[in-house]
Structure formats: structure tokens, C-alpha cells
């Protein structure tokens, strides 16, 4: 079966900067793929590239195929027929993506009428169905509310309703639950999961919350400084991370379930912060990597298939890190 989306060697540059340096991955129909990584690692730019929303001065290379169709060189006009209809998107702050002077209903109707020849009455009816679908209580009344009349969680539901209005095959959610509280976040994630199962829609979930990934994603891809550095099924990746960056992230997260407490000792740190330079010769993680050695500075380590479905971009995998468990790392 061909994947729904195939991204090959996708890169984005601005002037002399190269924030996305060539990432390749597939998205299977109906799956939930999580992308995690530091801010500035290129997650959002990759996502924007997938829906043709990169700023016009961005340089992009590589290819993106959706259901076999090459999207690399589409015009803005062509993108408009794909965005919303075949690929939907929701962002972190619904307030900035919703129009404050239009009611929720008007905004959904607008989206429906861009893509489908439907009259206002049926569009409004469909909009109420959509609000219902995303579990907004009293949808028939809420449809005439303005965004500011809704809570953060409700606004994010409205964004999801707009995102799925035209039954896209792929929905991209960029930090869509980050600004929400845990109880509301759990509701939204459950909603996304139900929707993708019911609508057979793939979801790319961009997040920095490893718990969310472990709990909801089918597959996870870890990015660092514009590259994919690890990929696999969530459980194996988190139980047995390969790449030193992934290992560091897990070790640096406080672990409530084992009762980790500051009086017992400090958290493991990843020293420094992300540095991404155009003229790097070696591994971008090298300045922060506890395992770095001279050879790491010679060439950018390629991402390699390590075992079934597991990829990592570090030459020390798996010979050095093959059998170290996460528990051993955090001393639990």
C-alpha cells in the first residue's frame, strides 16, 4: 500500500539559514504520527511546508507527495484547493487563527463554501453538525457566538471543526493542546483520536509533551536542529531510546510515576541549548551530547534503519546504546 503522504529530503531555508535540513518520512492513511523536538528544531516549518503555507521568501527543496500526487511545485491557487479539503490544520492559539469579528458559524460556512458548491442554508446545517461532532454542547445556539465568547477549549474545538469540515485525509495539529489545561487537553486529544478513527483521517501531532506522544501516537519522529534523529513506535522509543538526544529528553523529564523528588537529587540535564549552523560538519547535537567523540565532528550522521521500524541518526546506535534501558539511565 502506498502511504498517504511521502516526504522526501524536504528542506527549508531563509537567506543563509537552513532551519529544515532534509527530512524524509511517510504518513500512513488514518495513523497518528507525532513529531517531537525542541522549539526551533523545524517542526512547525516542516508542517507549514506540508500545506503550502511557507512564507514566499522561503527556499524549499525536496518532494512532498499526497496520495501519489506531487505537491512540490504547486501554485498558490492549486494549494488553495488542497488546503482545507485534503489537508487540514489547527494551531496552538485558536484566537489568532479565528476571525474575531465573525461568528463561529460564519467562519465554518465560509470554509465549506470555498470548497463545495453548497447553499448557505445547507452550509449552516452542516456547520451545526460539525460543532456537534466536536462535542460542543448546544451547537445550534453556540454557532452564533463570537470567538471571544468561548473558552480556550471550546475555541480549539471550533478550530478542529473547521479543520475537518471538508473531510481532509490529513490533519496537522501544531501544539494544538499546549495552551490548554490537562483536563481539557485530555478531552481534545480524545476527540482527535475519535475523529481520525471515524473519518479515517491521518493526524500529524506536533508536540513537545512526551506523555501525550506515548499515550496517543501510533508512531513518533524526533527532530533536532532541522533533522530527524529518531523514529519508531512510541513504546519502544520511550522504553529504549536510541539517540542521545531522545535519551537526554527522557532522562530530563521529571518522573511522577516513580515519585522522583528534588530532595533526592537533581534532574539529569542536557547541557547548553540548540545550536543550528549552516556550516556544521558533524552531528548538530555534538556540543550537548554526553557521548560525543572526535569522529562525531567529521560528518553529519545519516538516519539509518536500526531494526524493524526503528531509525536513529547516530553511529553509536546500536553498538553502544543497544541494551541500555531508560531506567538504568535515570537510576530508577
Amino acid at each position, binding site marked *: 500500500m502506498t502511504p498517504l503522504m511521502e516526504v522526501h529530503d524536504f528542506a527549508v531555508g531563509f537567506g543563509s539559514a537552513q532551519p529544515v535540513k532534509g527530512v524524509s518520512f511517510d504518513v500512513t492513511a488514518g495513523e497518528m504520527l507525532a513529531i517531537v523536538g525542541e522549539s526551533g528544531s523545524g517542526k512547525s516549518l516542516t508542517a507549514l511546508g506540508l500545506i503550502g503555507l511557507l512564507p514566499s521568501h522561503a527556499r524549499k527543496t525536496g518532494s512532498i507527495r499526497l496520495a501519489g500526487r506531487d505537491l512540490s511545485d504547486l501554485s498558490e491557487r492549486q494549494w488553495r484547493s488542497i488546503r482545507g479539503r485534503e489537508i487540514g490544520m489547527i494551531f496552538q492559539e485558536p484566537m489568532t487563527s479565528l476571525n474575531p469579528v465573525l461568528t463561529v458559524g460564519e467562519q465554518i460556512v465560509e470554509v465549506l463554501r470555498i470548497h463545495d458548491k453548497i447553499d448557505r442554508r445547507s452550509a449552516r446545517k452542516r456547520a451545526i453538525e460539525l460543532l456537534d461532532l466536536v462535542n460542543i454542547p448546544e451547537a445550534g445556539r453556540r454557532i452564533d457566538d463570537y470567538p471571544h465568547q468561548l473558552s480556550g477549549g471550546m475555541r480549539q474545538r471550533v478550530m478542529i471543526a473547521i479543520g475537518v469540515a471538508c473531510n481532509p485525509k490529513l490533519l496537522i495539529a501544531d501544539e494544538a493542546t499546549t495552551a490548554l*489545561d490537562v483536563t*481539557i487537553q485530555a478531552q481534545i486529544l*480524545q476527540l482527535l*483520536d475519535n475523529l481520525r478513527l471515524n473519518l479515517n483521517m491521518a493526524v500529524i501531532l506536533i508536540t513537545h509533551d512526551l506523555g501525550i506522544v*506515548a*499515550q496517543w501516537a501510533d508512531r513518533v519522529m524526533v527532530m533536532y536542529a532541522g533533522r530527524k534523529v529518531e523514529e519508531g513506535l512510541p513504546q519502544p522509543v520511550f522504553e529504549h531510546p536510541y539517540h542521545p538526544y531522545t535519551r537526554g529528553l527522557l532522562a530530563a*523529564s*521529571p518522573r511522577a510515576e516513580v515519585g522522583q523528588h528534588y530532595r533526592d537529587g537533581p534532574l539529569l540535564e542536557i547541557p547548553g541549548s540548540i545550536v543550528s549552523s549552516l556550516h556544521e560538519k558533524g552531528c548538530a547535537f555534538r556540543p550537548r551530547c554526553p557521548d560525543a567523540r572526535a569522529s562525531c565532528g567529521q560528518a553529519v550522521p545519516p538516519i539509518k534503519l536500526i531494526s524493524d521500524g526503528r531509525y536513529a541518526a547516530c553511529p553509536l546506535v546500536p553498538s553502544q546504546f543497544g541494551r541500555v534501558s531508560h531506567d538504568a539511565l535515570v537510576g530508577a
Partner: protein
Amino acid sequence: MTLLSVHNLSTQYSAGRGTVRAVDDVSLEIETGETVALVGESGCGKSSLGKSLMRLVEPTSGQVTFKGSDVTAMSARELRGLRQRIQMIFQDPFASLNPRQTVRAILTAPLKVHGIGDGKRRREIVEKIAEQVGLPPDSLDRYPHEFSGGQRQRIGIARALILEPELVVCDEPVSALDLSIQAQILNLLVEMKQRLSLSYLFVSHDLSVVRYFSDRVLVMYLGKIVESAPTAALWASPAHPYTRALLAAVPDPAKRKHAAPISGDLPSPHNPPSGCRFHTRCPLATDLCRAEAPRYRSFGENHTVACHYAQ
């Protein structure tokens, strides 16, 4: 020894047609050397409570006592002295750092305001705190925008600690940071706590961080503290239905795709529900809950809960 105690504190904001009781009849104590976490959904009143303690916003009623002195009765001059001993660290240090001042000027300002040292002494103090919070020596003559989020938070911490306060209110200090940076900042806060014998009130909505970082937890819902317990006890036996829902909502790698623990939204603080404020979302709610606000009951050592049916 009790460092700070708060009795029946309320803070209201007038908003449009009505008022919002952001903090509603809250009582709490912070012991010397303790880290107390304040958790709850956004908008539940955590930051308002933090600011009311040092009268950055004026409480409407109630009493705050810091080391035996009544903060609520302090004159402007006394308040200035108090703000040397209680400091605040914010989520977004950038918003609170003057972009046109160098880090050196930012850190020197509080020393000047409080008349500490001469030029030479101030330079020494600034250089020492910068080193302690892990800012490289050349940072002092740079501007806030030249720093990453983690480094900016180090500047915010240096500024808060330069006067050697006794209590620091940390308002979501790591929420905006990447995971790899979060651990650095949490470790720094622990190190500084030990070095300067600080006590913290740590406002956060991240329960994994709270589990690690605090000695005691206050759970807040719509302006009220609904449960207070030592950290380990709260995780071992959460008693309030809201606390249970919060803990159950934390994404947990071991629980694939479990259902959201509670439905519904945080009700509008303009018009909070009658009786127990959690009744609109509580799976155990009864008529009693809708009619009558629950009192605090003791649930174990240092563990109190406001729920008619806590068990």
C-alpha cells in the same frame, strides 16, 4: 517556623458589568524552607493569589502575615521593604525585562532602588549572582533579546534573587521552556534554594513538575483551595474529585488512550456555580453539593479537603 500565613484572603476584579472573585476566601501557610506548589487550571486564580500575597494586586479582604508583620496593613514604605524579602519570577521573563537595558543595568536596578552598596560593591554583587545562575561573564553587557528562552529565565532568576529574598513566588517559571532547558532551570532553582535558604510558592499547571519540585501542594479550583496535602500524600491518596481528575488527566506513557477523566469546561468565574463550585463537573455531585459549599475537613496529617464526600 511559619514564614507566610494567609487568612481568608479574597481578591476581586471588577470586570464589565460584574465582579470576578479571582481569589475567594483562601487561607494557607508557608513554612520556612518549604516549597509549596499551587496547581489548577488556567484562569482559576493562581497568579492573582501569588500577586495578592505581596500586594502587587490589592486583596479585597483578608489578612496576609509575613514573619509576624501584617502585610495588609503596611504603608507604601514598608511594602518596599517587604518586596526586598518576597520576590517574583515570571513565566515569560522577556515581557518583564526592559529590552533597552543591558543585563548589568537590569540586575543593578534593584540594588539601587534599595540603596544597597556603592558602585563597586554593586558590581561585585551583580557579577556574583550572574555566575551563580550560570550566565556567562560576557552576558552582562548584552541585551535580553540576545538570549535564548532558558538564558532569559536565568536573568529573571538573577534579578529576583539579587536582593537575597526569603520567599520567592515562581509563576509558571518553566512552562514556556523546552524540556531539555526545563530541567536546567528546575535544578538551578533547587540549588539557589539551598544556597540562599529560600522558600518557594511555585505556581504551575504541570503536575509532573509539581511532583518533583514541591514539598506540599495546594489545589485550586475557581478561586478556592479545594485540597492541601504533602506532595507524596497527594499522589498516594488524592481525596478531592477534582484533584483525582487532574492527576488522572496527566498523560501517562503507561496508559494508552484512556478516556478523559472529566468532561465539561471550567465555568465562568463571573458566575461561579452555587454550593460546591466543582459540582457542574463532578461525577459524585448531589443536591447537597449544589446547595451548600463544603467545609474543610482534615484528611490526614497536614491534609485538608473541601468536599462533602471526600473519602
